């Protein structure tokens, strides 16, 4: 099977190469047979890569420990489901996974565009082919997951090392695939942008054709980032969900620029403006996805997420440079075609609002990128290693995040083209009153921290704006169509899914900001407790009932039963664990005990056991409003789905054409 898997990858490489060659030939000779051949070759290559990934999964599941990759990232004691996670646990498998996700996108793009975008598709195929070729080249020459171990190797005999215990969590089964689906998916709108530039089809057609192809990776990336936060919260045991780790940042950057792009394309769709800007934004977004892959795999930055340092860095860096130079050359080549034919009328217009929103998204992305890369810069310039940690990022991103929140509220209150003074006054009065009122009430209730106060005010401001807009829309529909409230709401959303889906996403973001503000009120305590001893924290009494050891096939666990009471009423029993995995003795693993209530989380981890005093060391935390972060994530996903799904009119039109 090792030979089979490796052959599939090599065949895929050859087919991709031929697809690119045939596409180029088609352009030179204008012979359409070559276009058809190129498309079929690329689809064939994609299916072969997907086949190779499935072969590796099969090898992981059956436990073929003669394969070096299977032996390193799986073991006899791993559960079947975690054996599948082995596919993305190591460098070789994850690159193959990357290529197979790209293959899936290529297959779907080819299928859905088999009778559409005929002018753009040949170039789209070339771009997708080049990206695929790069990854297959890396896999074949440097990171072959089908390498066979020399006979009689110890690791094979013992039945594999097994998956890193940190990755043995349900969130880790979903988080990496989602991130990959997001990362890789941005290649599709990028390829269409390049195709639009080459063919000079720079009207809104390519934007409309890729609206869903952009929303889907954006959704996957967003969901992946949130799920990564959830994994960090329940697995890493430090009580937080976002550590501003370089690799976390790398996944967040394309999401930010992708968000800016999703907003600015609305202007091109509606007003045929910002052609250059949209092309640049999707180019930046795609470049950042490859740059993120480079950060994770080059070993230039230390991170809990990074793979071991390899020689791949130079190749990825070269590819990033190639992408940037190609994009710049294309933009210069087509700069005359990119100039807008329509003009902005006023600063107080929705168009300007979108532009400011874009600028802040980009500034935020630049600031995060700057902080992420600063340790490298410091070492290069001064020869001094420094750390740029979460304290720094929280400090620089918080004010920019607030500005962004302001614009989330202001944007929808502005009219297209120009907002008159009377409209400004009418649209802003209630939201401003709601924001100010909320801040005053929060202050009267004793809230004194600056950021939580501002967030409370801004959340109320944005929410009031969305509410008023929605109520006005319902009223108008009721007046015009005589519909009931719910029917009016439903048809209003159905008629403008991207707008109202966007508003739902905004509500999700508001929930997340409320969750972020809650961090300011979290409490934690390091305690050393013997059996029967208690600690009181924020009105909760934590009592150690007992501590004991449990043996499992792949690990032994030291467990503490921690009874929690409030006002003499039992609340729950927390069971934090400290695990020692058989093949990972040097890496004790903390299993967080978490009890979530609507307004706060009770969170405990075991730091260790002191045999002299017969006491356990515990870290206990009470984290308010963390649930709002996850709730916000769910609302964000729902909002995106609303924007993604076709409206009734679209469905009907499709039925008619079918």
């Amino acid at each position, binding site marked *: 099977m090792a030979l089979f898997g490796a052959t599939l990858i090599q065949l895929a490489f050859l087919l991709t190469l031929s697809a690119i060659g045939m596409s180029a030939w088609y352009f030179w000779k204008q012979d*359409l047979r070559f276009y058809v051949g190129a498309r079929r070759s690329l689809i064939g290559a994609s299916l072969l890569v997907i086949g190779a990934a499935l072969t590796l999964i099969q090898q992981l599941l059956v436990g073929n420990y003669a394969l070096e990759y299977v032996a390193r990232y799986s073991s006899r004691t791993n559960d079947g489901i975690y054996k599948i996670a082995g596919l993305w646990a190591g460098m070789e498998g994850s690159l193959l996974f990357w290529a197979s996700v790209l293959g899936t996108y290529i297959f779907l793009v080819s299928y859905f565009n088999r009778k559409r975008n005929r002018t753009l598709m040949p170039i789209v195929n070339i771009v997708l082919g080049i990206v695929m070729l790069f990854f297959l080249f890396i896999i074949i020459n440097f990171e072959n997951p089908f390498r066979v171990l020399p006979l009689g190797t110890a690791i094979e005999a013992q039945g594999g090392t097994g998956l890193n215990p940190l990755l043995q969590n349900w969130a880790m089964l979903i988080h990496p695939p989602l991130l990959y689906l997001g990362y890789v998916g941005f290649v599709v709108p990028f390829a269409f942008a390049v195709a639009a530039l080459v063919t000079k089809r720079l009207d809104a057609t390519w934007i409309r054709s890729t609206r869903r192809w952009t929303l889907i990776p954006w959704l996957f990336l967003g969901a992946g980032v949130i799920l990564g936060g959830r994994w960090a919260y329940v697995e890493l045991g430090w009580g937080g969900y976002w550590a501003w780790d370089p690799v976390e940042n790398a996944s967040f950057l394309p999401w930010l620029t992708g968000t800016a792009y999703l907003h600015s394309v609305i202007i091109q769709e509606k007003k045929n403006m910002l052609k250059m800007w949209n092309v640049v934004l999707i180019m930046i977004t795609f470049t950042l996805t490859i740059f993120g892959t480079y950060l994770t795999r080059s070993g230039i930055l230390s991170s809990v997420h990074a793979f071991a340092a390899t020689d791949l860095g130079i190749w990825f860096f070269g590819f990033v440079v190639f992408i940037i130079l190609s994009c710049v050359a294309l933009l210069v080549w087509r700069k005359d075609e990119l100039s807008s034919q329509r003009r902005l009328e006023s600063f107080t217009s929705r168009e300007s609002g979108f532009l400011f929103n874009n600028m802040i998204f980009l500034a935020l992305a630049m600031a995060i990128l700057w902080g992420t890369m600063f340790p490298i810069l410091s070492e290069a310039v001064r020869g001094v*290693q420094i750390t740029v940690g979460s304290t720094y990022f929280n400090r620089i991103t918080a004010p920019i995040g607030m*500005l962004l929140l302001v614009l989330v509220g202001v944007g929808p209150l502005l009219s297209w083209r120009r907002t008159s003074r009377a409209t400004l006054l009418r649209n802003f009065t209630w939201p401003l009153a709601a924001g100010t009122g909320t801040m005053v009430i929060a202050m009267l209730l004793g809230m004194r921290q600056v950021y939580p106060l501002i967030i409370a005010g801004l959340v109320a401001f944005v929410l009031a704006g969305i509410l008023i807009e929605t109520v006005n829309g319902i009223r108008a529909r009721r007046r015009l169509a005589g519909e009931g409230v719910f029917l009016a709401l439903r048809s209003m959303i159905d008629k403008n899914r991207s707008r109202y889906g966007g508003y739902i996403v905004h509500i999700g973001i508001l929930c997340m900001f409320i969750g972020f503000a809650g961090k300011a009120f979290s409490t934690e305590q390091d305690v050393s407790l013997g059996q029967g001893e208690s600690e009181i924290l924020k009105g909760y009494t934590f009592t150690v009932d007992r501590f004991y050891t449990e043996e499992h096939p792949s690990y032994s666990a030291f467990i503490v039963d921690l009874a929690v009471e409030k006002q003499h009423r039992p609340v729950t029993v927390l069971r934090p664990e400290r695990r020692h995995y058989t093949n990972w003795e040097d890496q004790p693993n903390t299993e967080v005990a978490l009890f979530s209530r609507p307004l706060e989380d009770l969170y405990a981890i075991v730091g260790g056991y002191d045999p002299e005093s017969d006491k356990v060391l515990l870290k206990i935390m009470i984290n308010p409003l963390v649930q709002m972060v996850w709730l916000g994530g769910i609302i964000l996903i729902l909002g995106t789905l609303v924007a993604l799904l076709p409206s009734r009119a679209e469905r009907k039109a499709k039925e008619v054409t079918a």
Partner: protein
Amino acid sequence: MNKFRLGLLLLALAAGLAGQEGKDALQRELEKEVMAPCCYGAPVSEHESEAAKQVRGQITQLIGEGRTREEILDMYVAIYGERILAQPRAEGFNLMAYVMPPMFLLVGGILLVYIINQMKTPATATATRRKKTYSDEFFDKVEREMKEMGI
């Protein structure tokens, strides 16, 4: 006189409690500012390694000895280098780390105001009317042919 003594006693007690609270706050602050020297992957407040535990203990001891925040941080920098700090000090070259993010915002804002002003000026006739080029004709032809071939 007894009331006066009681008052003094309560005052001393309050000052003692406030002092302890201040020490705890400083401890928490320092634990967030010093990285775990084992891997420099997280501050000692979040890290559970032996090295991180050791640093937490040292910080408690140093605060107990009456050392100030800056003295303690200086001591760690002297032992491990600047990498031990969770965020770079805003001085010298490191100042750039703090100056650039607001600059991105400022420069971006100024640039945007300029661009919007430019976009507000009326478009010239040449920009609005684009001639059909050879490339357009070629792609129109390709599209026609592809439709004919049913691709």
